[in-house]
Structure formats: structure tokens, C-alpha cells
């Protein structure tokens, strides 16, 4: 299917429903990689993954190999992991520390800021050869926010802070929960499922599925009444609900309705932890941060779950294959007993040997199979239509989260029709 124009995008996505081909058509997936993953800001994790000079990790955006490094001067670099000579990757290790990156093929050697330091037999390249012209290519745009690393292949994306907009305040809250004002990630849990990447994105916003998909963990449908407010006006009044910020970002705040069955409240309110937060923020904000149960999506690939202090990265591999990495985040300055339990619960949620993500992955693979039945049929996002637009132009909704999914697809349609 060729979708090069606004009208073809409009035939795929309406305001509250999406053609099933959007999840199953390889040509649409290719265009998503070009327009969304190479066209917008993409999250590459957190700089605490590379805390010391010489630290590095390898990564990918839309199948393009990338090297994230910390240089001697403390700066973080995001480079193409491809030798400038014949193109081999210069590093194939997931993470570590190295003084330099030496291409295994002909020995071209690069510093951790990408500079080309050594070319064996350089004189054979002639007198005009200039090593300065052949450093590892940096991505056109790189920026961090509260330690979260973002990069873009598109030089024309707006500034990162403009891209994040008011969604940034919930990244602030995620990090401010650490008494020292910073987080330290642990190594990620890595899962793979046989489904389209957007199934995970939709699921991040989906408050409808838990009793059906995760009955053993959260209780079945009869055991759990819907206690969250079901429309935007009520959500605003009662302090819960969902918000879509534009550019596909959105969040849910469920703290007052079901925090207690996610994580033990007495541990979230560990006295020395709350006391440390109170010193920085005062008692009211300290308690609010300690119990914050918000779920933030930074479109298209970063999800922050505040109460359990973890974030996830979505990594599309093919139209029907996706990786999701879950990163436990230590709250620096919080007691070990709290950080260890946060990490333990995050493992249980996000691990391939755990009890939550595995059920979601099963649902995703079943959806992916079922969507093939009729690509012209619709996927429905029609719940909870009682929304309103607040003073910032954000869509406030309530209930189960379709309002958020509709917001993500507005951004999907914008990016697919108008690159950048």
C-alpha cells in the first residue's frame, strides 16, 4: 500500500478507529520507520547507563546500529556504529567501558567522542587524507532531559524541550522522587513478542485490559469494580484521569484509585525516604511524589511508570516483531530496602520470566494473528468519548485510556503525512 499523501493516511486513521492494516502491512511499517523512528525524537534510555568516561552501550534506531558513549570530558555522544572506511560495526558488545573503538576489519580506531584516532598505513591514503573528516558520524540531533537521552536522525526536529512540552513535568516527577534528584538505572529486562510495536504503545494507555489479561495477578473482572472516573470532567474534579499533551505524549494518573495493589503503601512511605523528600519539597509534595501512580508515554517509544520507578523502551524489529526493554531505576538517596523492592517488582512485571508483561505479550501475539483476518476492518478506540480540552490545549479524558490512544494516533497521522 502506498501512503504518500494526507488522503491515504486519512483513509487509514479516523478520530477513534484505525484500519487493521496499520498493524500488519510491511510497507506501512517501513514508512513508520522512515517517518516516525527516523523522523522524530527517539528515546535511547538514560545517561546513568554510561556513568563513567569510556562507558558505552550499543543500541539501534529503526535497525540502524548506534553507539552511545561517555567521553573523557563527561559529554554523552550518540554515534552511528559503523566504520567510515568499509562500514563494519566498531562495537558488538551490549555495554561496557573501552578507551577506544577499533574496527575489526582494518583497524581504524575511534575515540569515545567519535574522533578517528588511528588509521593503519595512513600514508597509503595519500597526502590529502584528513582523519578529522572521518570520525564516527554523530546523529544530527542529540539532547538529554533529566538524564534521559534523546536523539534524532532528522536535523529539523524542534528543540527537545519543545517536543516534550508540558509532558516534561512528569519526567521531572519521576526523577524528583529520588531524594538526590537523580536516578541510577539497573540493567534492563529484555522481552520479545510476535506483534506490531503499536500494540505495546496502545497497551501502555489501556486501563481496560488488566482484569482480563492478568487475572492471576490483579484479580478477575468480577473482583475489581471500575473505580477510576470515567469522563474528563469528573476526572479533573476528582484528580484522576488521562491527559493527551499533543505530539503523541500522554499520561494517566491512577494514584488515588488503585495505588495500593501495585506496591505496598507503607514502603512507598518509608519514613527516612519521605523525610528526605520533605526536606526538598515540603510535606505535601513529598507525599504526592512518594505515592505518585502516573503512567507517562513519550511518543513513540518511552514509557515511564512512576510508582514502580521503571521505564520501558519499545524497539520495533519488524511489522510483527518487537522488543521491549524494562529498566529498573534506583531512586538515588532512597533506602536500599525501597530500591530493592522497586527493582524486584519491576522484574516481576517486565521480565520474560515474570508475571505481567508475559500475559500482555501473549495478548499481542493473539491480536497480531487476528488482525490478519481482515486488514480493512477497524481497530476500535471508541471508549470514553467524554473529553474536554483544558487551558493548555491538552485533551483531558477519563476511564480506560482510549482518549490517550486517540491522541497517539493523531501524532501518528501527523508524522506519517508530514515528515518532521
Amino acid at each position, binding site marked *: 500500500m502506498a501512503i504518500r499523501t494526507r488522503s491515504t493516511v486519512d483513509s487509514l486513521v479516523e478520530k477513534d478507529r484505525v484500519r487493521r492494516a496499520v498493524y500488519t502491512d510491511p510497507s506501512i511499517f517501513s514508512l513508520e520507520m522512515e517517518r516516525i523512528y527516523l523522523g522524530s525524537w527517539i528515546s535511547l534510555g538514560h545517561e546513568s547507563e554510561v556513568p563513567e568516561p569510556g562507558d558505552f552501550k550499543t543500541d539501534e534506531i529503526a535497525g540502524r546500529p548506534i553507539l552511545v558513549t561517555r567521553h573523557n570530558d563527561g559529554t554523552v555522544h550518540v554515534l552511528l556504529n559503523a566504520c567510515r572506511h568499509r562500514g563494519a560495526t566498531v562495537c558488538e558488545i551490549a555495554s561496557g567501558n573501552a578507551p577506544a573503538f577499533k574496527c575489526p576489519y582494518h583497524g581504524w580506531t575511534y575515540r569515545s567522542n567519535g574522533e578517528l584516532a588511528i588509521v593503519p598505513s595512513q600514508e597509503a591514503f595519500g597526502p590529502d587524507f584528513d582523519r578529522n573528516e572521518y570520525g564516527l558520524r554523530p546523529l544530527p540531533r542529540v539532547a538529554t532531559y533529566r538524564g534521559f537521552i534523546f536523539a534524532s536522525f532528522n536535523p529539523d526536529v524542534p528543540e527537545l524541550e519543545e517536543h516534550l512540552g508540558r509532558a516534561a513535568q512528569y519526567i521531572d516527577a519521576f526523577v524528583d522522587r529520588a531524594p538526590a534528584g537523580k536516578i541510577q538505572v539497573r*540493567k534492563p529486562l529484555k522481552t520479545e513478542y510476535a506483534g506490531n510495536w503499536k500494540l505495546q504503545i496502545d497497551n501502555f494507555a489501556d486501563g481496560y485490559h488488566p482484569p482480563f489479561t492478568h487475572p492471576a495477578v490483579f484479580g478477575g473482572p468480577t473482583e475489581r469494580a471500575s473505580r477510576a472516573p470515567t469522563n474528563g470532567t469528573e476526572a479533573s474534579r476528582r484528580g484522576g484521569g488521562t491527559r493527551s499533551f499533543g505530539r503523541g505524549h500522554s499520561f494517566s494518573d491512577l494514584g488515588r484509585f488503585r495505588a495500593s495493589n501495585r506496591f505496598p503503601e507503607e514502603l512507598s512511605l518509608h519514613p527516612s525516604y519521605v523525610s528526605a523528600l520533605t526536606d526538598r519539597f515540603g510535606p505535601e509534595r513529598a507525599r504526592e511524589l512518594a505515592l505518585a501512580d502516573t503512567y507517562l508515554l513519550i511518543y513513540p517509544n518511552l514509557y515511564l511508570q512512576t510508582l514502580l520507578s521503571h521505564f520501558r523502551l519499545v524497539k520495533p524489529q519488524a511489522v510483527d516483531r518487537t522488543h521491549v526493554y524494562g529498566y529498573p531505576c534506583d531512586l538515588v538517596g532512597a533506602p536500599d530496602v525501597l530500591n530493592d523492592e522497586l527493582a524486584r517488582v519491576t522484574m516481576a512485571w517486565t521480565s*520474560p520470566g515474570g508475571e505481567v508483561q508475559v500475559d500482555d505479550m501473549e495478548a499481542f501475539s493473539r491480536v497480531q494473528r487476528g488482525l490478519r483476518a481482515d486488514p480493512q476492518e477497524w481497530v476500535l478506540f471508541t471508549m470514553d468519548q467524554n473529553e474536554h480540552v483544558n487551558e493548555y490545549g491538552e485533551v483531558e479524558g477519563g476511564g480506560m485510556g482510549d482518549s490517550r490512544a486517540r491522541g497517539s494516533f493523531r501524532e501518528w497521522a501527523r508524522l506519517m503525512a508530514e515528515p518532521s
Partner: protein
Amino acid sequence: MASPDALQYEAEQFLYHEAALIDQRHYREWLELFTEDAVYWLPTEEENPDTGHPTSIIREDREGIAKRIKRLEHPVTLTEVPPRRARHFISNVVARSLGETEIFVTSNQLVYSFRLGVQVQYPGSWEHTLRRVGGQLRICQKKVYLLGNDRALAQLPVL
């Protein structure tokens, strides 16, 4: 103390018995093999990450294993309907005594797991620390180093 041959035989028979309980989905009997202070551990690293803050695919105590079994046996757990079928193959067993009551057993295992038309293989190194409790061997630590435990994985069978 048992002779080396007897120790080897006992360790091998124990591993076969444990594997059969898992493969036949007799999870409650499997749970009974663990001591009260047991640890069941699948690291995400190639080598022993005993220091620092390791992230693990699984790291749980006996209570955690019991919770895992409760989920597996729940009538509508998505990943178990229809059930997964698995078979453990065990080789390269080496057993040595750790003092009077414990035996450290390393083995190579290969688990074939089949569900919904897809068969997946999970090879790796298994380490069991077994303790003699009331005349019976019990597991006080079980550690599984899967090959490729640092890559993205679909849902794992019970290993």
C-alpha cells in the same frame, strides 16, 4: 559421606526427578523440593553477578516460587491456555560434596518448549546446591545460566 559414584548417581537421579516434575507440570510437588530458605535464580548475565545490583530474569524465594505456581495453575492465565509442553534433557552432570550436608551439582540442560505451533530451545548451564534434610535432598539454590540470557526473550517455560 557417600562415595563419589554414589554421590554422582544420587545427584543425577535428583535432577531427572526434578525435571520430570516440571515437564509433567506437577508444580506443587516441584515446590516441595525447595528448602524454606531457597533461592531460584536466572541471571541476565553470562557470569555470576553476585556483586552490585544485578537485574535478574528471575530471582525469587520459596514464596515467590509458590506465587509463580499459583499463576501457572490459575484457570485463565493467558500464557497457559492451551498449556505449554516442555521436555528437559540433562547432561554433563558433575557433583561434589560441600561439607557434610550439601552437594553442588552443575549440569548442562536443554529444554525444548512447544506451544501454539512454535518450538523453542533453551540451552544453558544449571547449578543446583542441594541439601540433605531429613534424609531427602532438597534444593537450597537453583541457578540457571541460559545461553543468550542477555538478549530479548519471549515468555520462558519453567526451567
